[in-house]
């Protein structure tokens, strides 16, 4: 559905995307993860043909981009990072106006509107103004708007950023419905939980480069020890000096907390009995641990 080879984009002397290769299959939900400034949004803009690459090729739904970007965009629905619903129109009018940009007749869009409003859970808000909607409603309407022309593939740029857990779950529910309907989804996100729950495969980007790619659980299994013990409290330094190295395969200190990655959490917990003042949290390792291991803990602003 989407084939990207050697994609490169420079802004001045800065290479924002460096030789990216991606392959997304039909019906798949694919995640693009990376710290701020890793090149996720630029990649999406390149894929849509909104900006032109300096090198590399893109084939979107079998159509070469940016050469035939117009035709390709007919098959793509986009949920942008920042809501850009039309504030001059009501909920229903937003959908009607957006359908026209795809060359749909008024009747054809009007016939789709009830279904889209139901999908977004906004059937009772059809005539509301955009300013009256909550953040979650706006996001759902943006998602419904992206579906107005019944695209084969959906691009979502951080679809749940800034939403409360209830709204986030509603969006996830909607996305699962779309995946079940056979839509292909490309998703960027900072929420590891979101990526773990929704995506079939994901790629981690850093500094414009592909760091790794694979199914979420496969990535956890291949890149990181299965368990983490987070240790914090009085006497941490002494415990690290005396006990940590034999029981932790890998240990990282972040502020007041030690992250101890291990194959055998029992041994770590036994060792922790020597320092009863310390408190700890034992949990299975997750995608966030992989992400932080591969992209580092430094801030990226």
């Amino acid at each position, binding site marked *: 559905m989407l084939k990207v080879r050697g994609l490169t984009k420079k802004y001045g002397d800065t290479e924002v995307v460096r030789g990216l290769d991606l392959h997304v299959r039909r019906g798949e939900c694919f995640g693009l993860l990376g710290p701020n400034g890793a090149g996720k949004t630029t990649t999406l803009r390149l894929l849509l043909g909104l900006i032109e690459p300096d090198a590399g090729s893109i084939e979107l739904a079998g159509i070469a981009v940016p050469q035939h970007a*117009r035709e390709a965009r007919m098959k793509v629905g986009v949920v942008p990072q920042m809501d850009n619903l039309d504030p001059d129109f009501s909920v229903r009018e937003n959908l009607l*106006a957006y359908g026209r940009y795809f060359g749909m007749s008024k009747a054809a869009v009007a016939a789709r509107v009830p279904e889209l409003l139901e999908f977004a859970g906004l059937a009772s808000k059809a005539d509301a103004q955009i300013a009256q909607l909550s953040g979650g409603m706006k996001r759902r309407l943006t998602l419904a708007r992206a579906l107005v022309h019944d695209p084969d593939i959906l691009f979502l740029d951080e679809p749940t950023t800034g939403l409360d857990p209830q709204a986030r779950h509603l969006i996830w529910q909607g996305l699962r419905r779309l995946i079940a309907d056979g839509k292909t989804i490309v998703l960027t996100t900072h929420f590891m939980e979101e990526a773990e729950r929704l995506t079939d495969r994901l790629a981690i980007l850093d500094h414009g480069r592909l760091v790794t790619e694979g199914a979420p659980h496969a990535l956890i299994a291949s890149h990181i020890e299965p368990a983490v013990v987070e240790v914090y409290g009085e006497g941490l330094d002494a415990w690290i000096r005396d006990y940590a190295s034999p029981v932790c395969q890998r240990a990282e200190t972040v502020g007041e907390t030690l992250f101890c990655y291990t194959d055998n959490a029992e041994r770590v917990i036994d060792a922790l009995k020597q320092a009863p003042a310390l408190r700890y949290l034992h949990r299975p390792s997750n995608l966030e641990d992989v992400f932080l291991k591969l992209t580092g803990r430094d801030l990226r602003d």
Partner: protein
Amino acid sequence: MIKHLRLPHLSWRFIPVWQRNYLVWKKLAIPSILGNLADPMLYMLGLGYGLGSLLPDVAGMPYLTFLAAGTVAYSTMNAATFEVLYSSFSRMHVQRTWDAIMNAPLTLDDVMLGELTWAVAKSLLSGVAILAVIWGLGLYGNFWMTLWIIPVVALVGFCFGGLGLVMADGALVRRVLPCVAAAAAGAGCVGLAAAHPRHRPGAPAGGRQRARRHRPACRRAADLRQHRLHHRAGADPAAPFNVGGAPSPRFSYPSKHHGIGAGRPSYKWCGESDPGGLLVGVIA
């Protein structure tokens, strides 16, 4: 820089962009049209009849006539520039409507063409509203010649819409479309003005005068003006307040073959006398 100078990628998809702006405007169409009519009415009544009755001729034509042509020029320029500098700008940068539209199969050139043609529509609306006032008050010499103004107004819309778009976002100066629209439409304005049917020296006099007799508003204004001038000059109403010392040509319009600003003998810009010429003259 050269790499940006490509021909615009245009398509018929600019129409939904125009239509979007039209649908938003339609929601407030009645107040908007009333505003378009009220603004020139205020100028014509307040300045034209009020102030005009105190003023001498301007370059050989009544101040009211001069003002009517100038109002068309100012108002159509203003309609186009306001539309792109304020409304299009907020759609571009504040509401991010352009971003949303460009995720559909439209290019930036399509969006700009939609905005430009909308600016032209706003110019036409405002120009025609003023013409309606001019027609209603009978401030013209020849009805058919006033229609000459309509294409000029459309070109003024393109010209100032294009200039305004470039001002709204300096990056758009790299785009061929608004720059070419501004330049071509500007040249078109001058061309239309130059092509306007000229003053014919041998034409029978008195057309304007005849027309006036059938338009009470005009006649009243003329009488009032006569009266005031008489009192200010404190002398002979037949030789009223006169700038250059030459006899006033107020009631001796030579031809009916002119629109607004007809029959001004000393106005030499771009031929003799024509509304397009006056329009472009005011713009220039």
